[in-house]
């Protein structure tokens, strides 16, 4: 089931084993599932869809799994759990990957990929200067071969880069990337011609939640003349935080985003939790320049920390679940507005004309 991999090709995240506080709990959980399967006479995993976990029966188990995922999946298990619970496995077509990597793709796309590969995850991972670059290039070229309508977008490099830290098989990482682009990001997020309406719409939607949940900060943003589309850097959403958060925090965010049902908009929870953690610093900014400097400066804007900080961030993000139930509707609405605006050849950036008043950002919020 699991092909053997040359040890030298493994990313350091998988070779330098760290003790994971949740490993025992995961092992116990997986063991119980295996026992239950054999009790039911389903020893052959292929019978029930395969995978480490298989179809979960009963609320109890579902809840236990949810708690385990929220607490963090051990690095060694991520490759299996991510692919299984996101159903990325279902995308796989036999030998398709092999043919994608052999396909001839537009040389301009290859140039763009080759330019970015050595500029990916470089700050944290010397692994990337060795075999990582080749792996990353292969996955991105395969992506361009499969999605010739989308092509390569800067930002996919860091998403794929982090996937490859958790998933040692290029092909598996590729299918996970495809699944993310197909289902986890809104439609057309990475399209050549969408004028970035998807990610911009998301930032505008985020502002509507800042207004509701952090009115003082929202007012401060208004006072500083920070337009809704500048609330946070566009890469927060565009790279699913891979270009933003520290590695541990990112993996924990992706655990929940990729694996738990109904959490495809979890990135909004994270964005708001980050703003909450940085609220006092942002409130101290006296000009728009200071605000943007703060956002882009990792020494100021706190986006990484020790295990305790990461736990706090995840907890805060999860606790926002109830407040963020309408993200899907709002982002669809904003994206539609922006597309219409772009379509009518107007400048993308004139939020004041577009949106009179400070409220009324979404269909469910007074039109």
């Amino acid at each position, binding site marked *: 089931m699991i092909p053997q991999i040359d040890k030298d090709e493994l990313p350091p995240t998988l070779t330098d084993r760290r003790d994971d506080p949740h490993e025992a709990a995961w092992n116990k959980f997986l063991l119980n599932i295996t026992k239950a399967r054999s009790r039911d006479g389903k020893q052959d995993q292929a019978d029930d869809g395969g995978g480490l976990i298989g179809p979960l029966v009963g609320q109890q188990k579902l809840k236990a799994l949810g708690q385990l995922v929220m607490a963090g999946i051990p690095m060694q298990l991520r490759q299996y759990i991510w692919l299984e619970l996101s159903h990325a496995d279902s995308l796989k077509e036999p030998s398709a990957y092999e043919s994608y990597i052999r396909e001839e793709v537009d040389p301009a796309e290859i140039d*763009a990929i080759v*330019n*970015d590969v050595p*500029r*990916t*995850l*470089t*700050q944290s991972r010397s692994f990337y200067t060795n075999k990582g670059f080749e792996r990353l290039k292969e996955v991105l070229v395969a992506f361009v071969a499969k999605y010739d309508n989308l092509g390569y*977008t*800067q*930002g996919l*490099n*860091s998403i794929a880069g982090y996937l490859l830290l958790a998933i040692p098989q290029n092909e598996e990482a590729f299918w996970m990337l495809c699944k993310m682009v197909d289902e986890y990001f809104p439609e057309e997020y990475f399209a*050549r*011609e969408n*004028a*970035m309406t998807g*990610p*911009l719409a998301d930032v505008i939607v985020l502002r509507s939640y800042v207004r509701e949940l952090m009115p003082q900060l929202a007012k401060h943003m208004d006072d500083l003349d920070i337009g809704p589309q500048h609330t946070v*850097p*566009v*890469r927060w959403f*565009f*790279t699913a935080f891979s*270009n933003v958060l520290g590695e541990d925090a990112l993996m924990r965010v992706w655990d929940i985003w990729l694996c738990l049902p109904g959490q495809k908009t979890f990135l909004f929870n994270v964005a708001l939790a980050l703003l909450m953690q940085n609220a006092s610093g942002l409130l*101290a*900014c*006296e000009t728009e*320049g*200071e605000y*943007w*400097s703060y*956002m*882009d400066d990792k020494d100021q804007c706190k986006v990484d920390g020790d295990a305790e900080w990461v736990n706090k961030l995840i907890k805060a993000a999860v606790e926002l679940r109830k407040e963020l139930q309408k993200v899907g509707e709002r982002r669809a609405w904003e994206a539609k507005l922006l597309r219409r605006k*772009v379509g009518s050849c107007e*400048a*993308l*950036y004139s939020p004041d004309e577009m949106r009179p008043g400070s409220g009324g950002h979404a269909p469910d919020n007074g039109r």
Partner: protein
Amino acid sequence: MAASSAYTNPLKKFKLVFLGEQSVGKTSLITRFMYDSFDSTYQATIGIDFLSKTMYLDDRTVRLQLWDTAGQERFRSLIPSYIRDSSVAVVVYDITSLKSFQQCRKWVDDVRGERGQDVIIVLVGNKTDLGEKREVSVQMGEEESKKLGCLFVETSAKVGHNVKGLFKKIAQALPGMEGEGVQGAANTIDVNVNPQKPESEGGCNC
């Protein structure tokens, strides 16, 4: 933070936007200017980054606000509002890439479309340290800049060549700065070109 607002003479602010194709060295130029360092491990810019730095001139202080943009075509729709907001546009190409040079005209057109003549545009040929791979001659750069009505310099962000010269040129061209000398001060960015190593304006130090 609070101190600046306490002064009666608020900082004069100038916004600069850095434009150009993917991996021509926009971020590296900014990093060299800001921190006098070159980081070969810098990551590709996604969307727009913002940096701000105070620069001391003779008798006044200005704050430069730098917008660093992603080079890829599809991010271009994000950029017009930043151009509209900037009094200086730095259009960068890689001297080892004719293609990156040919794209500069498009960027300059974008800037003129947004700002007309009310803008300082500097054409920058970066990566002079890779002279053996040069595809764009100094002369080509100079001629193009004349045609486009821009200032012109060649730089190497990697070895630090002429980056100060670039910002000195910009500082001298800023409104209200004409003819003024530029002085460095402790803990600030010294925009003086090192007097021991005079560098020509065109960046041709060969």
